[in-house]
């Protein structure tokens, strides 16, 4: 519909702009605007070192938001991110305490723990038909309970392995942080899965109308289950990277990633009702949110002000282009 109404103006624009999602364009425009405002405040906002550093910080959120996007495309939501992140980080660090085998298996073990949470979510949503918002809140509480019992309520003493630190802070290619490379690889895999595989098409199909997808012969329950498992695994992997970055896991390290990961996906033009959205948008959303956080902290905004501005910006941007059609 927007094609016909915008046809007059859009018809004269280059093809790649005409085909792009207006939400993604708005998100990228906001990134440019933020950089411009930042550069007025301090010249260093446009320096390559600063931008690369931001990209590195963004890649942790990027990995987590990738899983969140897969789930949101299904029209579901994953609120178990906070403790999936913490569990991935804690379990990977904990495994490192068990000799050389533990060190070698630390990263896979952390990811598997996150996937287990995801599988429980998936069973609940796909087979037991529990609303995803509820079952993921419940598994989040269970994961928190497990971690509290395991750590005794304190931050664990185990520290991250060398491999975890290398993945998060090392440089395999000079000048490009490893975390950014990992995000790029995961992003590329996600784009491939979403656009070139039947699984990806099924995800979009289920997001649009699960009933129709089921009737066209898709095993919708299996797809939903896999998507949740992937989301849990990616959250835990994000936690592993974060533990590598900070060189240890902490109690509530995942709390700061729930709202940003949802916001990044939604600001990137993915419909929260599912079925519509592109990975490019999520990339834009992740960078946008990271830049916003960074600029607020450079301006030495206290935590309270950051939360307020942050919430207002998200609501304002969604009001710009994330509105549902009027009910008529």
């Amino acid at each position, binding site marked *: 519909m927007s094609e016909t109404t915008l046809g007059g103006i859009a018809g004269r624009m280059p093809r790649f702009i005409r085909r792009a999602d207006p939400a993604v364009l708005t998100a990228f425009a906001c990134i440019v605007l933020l950089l411009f405002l930042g550069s007025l405040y301090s010249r260093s906002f446009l320096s390559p070192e600063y931008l690369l550093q931001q990209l590195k910080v963004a890649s942790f959120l990027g990995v987590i938001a990738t899983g969140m996007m897969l789930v949101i495309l299904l029209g579901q*939501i994953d609120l178990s991110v906070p403790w999936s992140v913490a569990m991935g980080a804690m379990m990977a660090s904990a495994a490192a305490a068990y000799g050389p085998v533990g060190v070698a298996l630390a990263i896979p073990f952390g990811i598997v723990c996150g996937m287990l949470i995801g599988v429980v979510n998936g069973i*609940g949503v796909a087979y*037991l*038909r*529990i*609303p995803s*918002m*509820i*079952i993921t*809140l*419940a*598994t*989040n*509480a*269970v*994961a*928190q*309970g*497990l971690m*509290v*019992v395991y750590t*005794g*309520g304190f931050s664990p003493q185990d520290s991250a392995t060398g491999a975890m630190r290398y993945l998060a802070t090392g440089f395999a290619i000079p000048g490009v942080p490893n975390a950014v490379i990992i995000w790029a690889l995961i992003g590329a895999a996600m784009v491939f899965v979403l656009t070139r595989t039947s699984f990806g098409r099924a995800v979009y199909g289920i997001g649009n109308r*699960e*009933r129709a997808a*089921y*009737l066209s012969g898709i095993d*919708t329950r299996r797809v939903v289950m896999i998507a949740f498992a992937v989301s849990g695994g990616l959250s835990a992997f994000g936690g592993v990277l974060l533990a590598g970055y900070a060189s240890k896991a902490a109690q*509530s390290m995942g*709390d700061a990633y*729930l*709202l940003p990961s*949802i*916001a990044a996906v*939604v600001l990137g033009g993915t419909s*929260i*009702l599912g079925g519509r959205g592109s990975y490019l948008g999520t990339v834009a959303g992740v960078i946008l949110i990271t830049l916003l956080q960074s600029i607020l902290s450079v301006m030495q905004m*206290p*935590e*309270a*002000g*950051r*939360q*307020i*501005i*942050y*919430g*207002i910006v*998200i*609501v304002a941007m*969604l*009001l710009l282009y*994330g*509105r*549902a*059609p*009027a*009910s008529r």
Partner: protein
Amino acid sequence: MKDWRYWLAEQRGTLLALGIFIVMFVIYTSNHPAGFTANVVQTAANKGVLLAFVAMAQTLVVITAGIDLSVGMIFTLTNCLASWLVIGTGIETAFGVLAVLGTGLLCGAINGAIVIYGRLQPIVATIATGAVYFGIALLLRPFPGGSVNEGLADALTGRLFGVVPASLVVLLAVVLIVWVPFSRSVLGRAAYAAGSSETAAYMSGVPIRRGKFAAYALAGLLAAVGGLFLTFFTYTGDAAYASGNAYTLFSIAAVVLGGVSLFGGKGSAIGAIFGALAFRTIGDLLFVFDFDPLWQPLFQGVILLIAVSLGAFALFRVRNRLEWFL
């Protein structure tokens, strides 16, 4: 069917929640070292009432098929505000209480305006407004502190005639003043109708927008009553992120236990109150059985997981597989 069977079918969730609560409470008091005394009941009531108010708030929104993930933060914000304002002489305290309740109403109204007139999804919108409310709470109380009119606080968290916990009386009063009129008014019926089928309600000319708006706004008000009570209970204001989040989470658990359908249009705040009291009692069972308090989060999480999985039994009644996909 006879009238009473309709009534029974309608109230099944509430009665189930009441049953669970009674069973749990009997187990709790019979194993409590002090037994069934006025003191034990008073403490249990004070703790339960906090969650009951927040759960009532959540119910109003859930009935419209929405969700309010900012209730816990409104609760925290009003707690911090009350620790500044509800103090001093009688008149000052009264104005303080009004200001706190008004703030809650305003927060709820902002949620409602964004969700209904801004047409954003309630999940995302209320997570974002929740961040704003928490930020304001943090501005008000960067560190735990403040004080409250202790005379009023003691009166409302104490006992009437030495037996009845005053907090339960307040809860009853709030039910009679807010919930009963709302659920019987045109707006309340509109909120139910919007939850059960928005299109059908719209076609029938039901004022769904006003109904939903009223539900969101009153949810803010009820969360503020909860926040006020937290201040009376603790004498301080504390902008704790974890506690706000926990109340949001527990309110959803209480609503589910109380037989309110998360798909909207079904259930009542009375059920949610019993759900809240039952949830609190279950959480406290650990203490009377002398478990390590470290296990409490896990225990509550597992209870929550079981409670939400119970809904899956409805699947056995599904004859046509297409009914899986609502």
